[in-house]
């Protein structure tokens, strides 16, 4: 079931990201950029215009032309024109997706580290927490009450219980990982 969740997320990420360039529709997303270095008395300048690929050359883009007559060809030879395309929709979508995931994770982290121990303490009393833990320093570690909740919940075999069971199992795994990496420095030092 979590795998299908992953699939769903992947398709949500992929579909808007891969679109053919022609269908962007936003005319602001194409440009022709001509960089012209200093020439005689004329200073260097950068010209940009929303033209298509076939019009992307010095004569169409450099306006107003700073030199006259015969110098135009020499000036244009030194200029370098490049056609560039971007997808502003992709960028917007990506940033918003990233920030929302980051925000959700931050909220969950605040809930796990600050709110949940407070709620559990108020609901179940102080004594339950103290007796449930092995060798974790203090109650500041997140998931430190995983064992006690796990032992309490085998009476109701329904969906909510399964979710809570899975969550407690995950917390225990993270607790183990944290012990190996941060406390005992066994892996990933």
């Amino acid at each position, binding site marked *: 079931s*979590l*795998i299908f969740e*992953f699939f769903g997320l*992947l398709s949500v*990420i*992929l579909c808007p*990201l*891969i679109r053919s*360039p022609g269908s962007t529709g936003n005319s*602001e997303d194409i*440009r022709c950029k001509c*960089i*012209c*270095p*200093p020439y005689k008395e004329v*200073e*260097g*300048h*950068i010209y*940009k215009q*929303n033209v298509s690929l076939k019009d992307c050359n010095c004569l169409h883009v450099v306006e107003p032309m700073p030199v006259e007559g015969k110098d135009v060809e020499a000036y244009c030879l*030194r200029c*370098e024109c*490049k056609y*560039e*395309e*971007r*997808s*502003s929709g*992709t*960028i*917007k979508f*990506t*940033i*918003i*997706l*990233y920030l929302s*995931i*980051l925000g959700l*994770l*931050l909220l969950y*982290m605040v809930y*796990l*580290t600050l709110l949940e121990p407070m709620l559990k303490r108020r609901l179940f009393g102080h004594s339950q927490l103290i007796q449930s833990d092995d060798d974790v320093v203090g109650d500041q570690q*997140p998931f430190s009450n995983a064992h006690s909740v796990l032992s309490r919940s085998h009476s109701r075999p329904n969906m909510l219980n399964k979710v809570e069971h899975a969550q407690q199992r*995950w917390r225990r*795994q*993270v607790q183990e*990982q*944290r012990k*190996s*990496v*941060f406390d005992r*420095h*066994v*892996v*990933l*030092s």
Partner: protein
Amino acid sequence: MSNGGGAASSSTHLLDFLEEPIPGVGTYDDFHTIDWVREKCKDRERHRKINSKKKESAWEFTKSLYDAWSGWLVVTLTGLASGALAGLIDIAADWMNDLKEGVCLSAMWFNHEQCCWTSNETTFDERDKCTQWKSWAELILGQAEGPGSYIMNYFMYIYWALSFAFLAVCLVKVFAPYACGSGIPEIKTILSGFIIRGYLGKWTLMIKTITLVLAVASGLSLGKEGPLVHVACCCGNIFSYLFPKYSKNEAKKREVLSAASAAGVSVAFGAPIGGVLFSLEEVSYYFPLKTLWRSFFAALVAAFVLRSINPFGNSRLVLFYVEYHTPWYLFELIPFILLGVFGGLWGAFFIRTNIAWCRRRKSTRFGKYPVLEVILVATITAVVAFPNPYTRQNTSELIKELFTDCGPLETSALCKYRSEMNGSTAYTDNPNQPAGPGVYSAMWQLCLALIFKIIMTIFTFGLKVPSGLFIPSMAIGAIAGRIVGIAMEQLAYYHHDWFLFKEWCEVGADCITPGLYAMVGAAACLGGVTRMTVSLVVIVFELTGGLEYIVPLMAAIMTSKWVGDAFGREGIYEAHIRLNGYPFLDAKEEFTHTTLARDVMRPRSSDPPLAVLTQDDLTVEELQGIINETSYNGFPVIVSKESQRLVGFALRRDITIAIENARRRQEGIMLNSRVYFTQHAPTLPADSPRPLKLRSILDMSPFTVTDHTPMEIVVDIFRKLGLRQCLVTHNGRLLGIVTKKDILRHMAQMANQDPESIMFN
């Protein structure tokens, strides 16, 4: 090869037909090594079963087709996911990096360059100026110039860098502690047959992706290539769970992981072929031809997906893709080789100091405060990096600037040469002229940046945030190379009458290209620290698209590898593997000592005797007693204590699972039931409880060597076959056992290293 239930023989017992494979047998514990031979046998049996049923019906035929093609499906999905995630990481990291500087008022999601994309206010000298982009000083104080706004910008830069780093380490600590570090040493160990549960899981993937962006954006001296390999391997692992062919077989899963790591490097550098060679040379342990083709396919799919996302708006995969067309001259090989020597020296220095610092962190009180450490390193980096424009900018942009050669279209300070045209103090951007003050000040700043990066990378690699090593090494090499290139250029200008330069260089013409020196320096430093050879040449070649520069690249990379090897044979990843004590039997090292199997095997003379099981003598209680008293992973099974003739080998985990399963499912199994490993039950008195048959978990073909076998051959067998243990016999009778851990400890002892540092089985 254990006989699965249902093997047809002429005198099958009735109970054989009722025997199914016991669920859980054949899986491995966390932090244990897999048995490659057993996994490959399991796969061949599965394949035979499917093939034999193929002709029965159309459904079976479809199933066999699906089985054959599932490999391609997995690598395609892995390539797609890697490309998509790499695009997400690139776009988000770019945006967050510029967030330290200011915001784009018209569209908040654009970084500086994208914000000014359509603006007509950009000038030739300031390519990124526009009114929509506001720096923090402008937003808060209302003015863009002046000392007050400089201090405000400084302060906001430090604030953002600190908050990104703090967020990153908090997320890693709370959700997925395995997401820290580079990932490549652990993936190397996993691919050689080690199990680390959760290292390639969903949460690790998500946290690594999110925190990688934060870590890169906080300005720390790290890169994202190593973590991208980890991300790609996570995708490969997750997708392989959809197909039972890969999820149930650890050896087949590692084929998918090899292909995934190729896809990871391919999206990091935009180099599909380099990615495949990197997977072959650095990451994978066994690399059959089938994996080669699939890795290439995965790398191509990933590169294609990344290109269609088009993160940088110029259809290039990597930010510092540069095309050179200028030739190089033979005399330039001398500075290139010098750059190679620098790369090798820096690589050896970095490996020594980084390992010493990581060892400090591991064993003393320093390691107790990871969050504080990250904040401290981020603060120091931000405070020192802001004043120098070369360290303030994104490291990838710095590399691109250094790789780009000076020409009429470039306006960086590095290109402010003094023009000789009218004898006046006009400045030009053409190289091969005397250096103007702009170039001198840029050189000073580059020297300071070099020292800063060298020092900070030592403390940054190994922090508890995702950190890669490729980009900082390339930056250090590029800075060194550019300095050497400019020095050579000025030498060529001021002494154009020397023999060397007179032969090849004409006055006023393009002779030396400092950008090429930067590229060669970057390759040399990266080769010096990772000791990559072929893959590095191909990656840099694909980055620059020039076949002409193969010779200087190879000269520099070979020199750096030789110089680095003179100080120590290990690259940075092998050194970290040794620091962590992973059971990695390096295929590149040769075992040259003359010891025999007898000297390495256990039990030694001072140890208790070998714990063996007899084939039909034990009761369940005695068996459980042996398992509880010892901590060995497996037990040889012998005919009887008098003859000591070998029957097979049984693993502890399998025995435990089988006994539990039997007690749950079968009736009448009690503590004094007889356990037998033979095909038929031994004759028992009439009132004894029902015996327990454990033949299905017995490995009937364990590998054996005699006690006089030279250790060279034993190590070779372990490497080539991927064994976990090997039994030692003397005159046909069982004498002892050699495990992979014993071999690693023996090799460490022979190399005068601490044998107790090998921690895992």
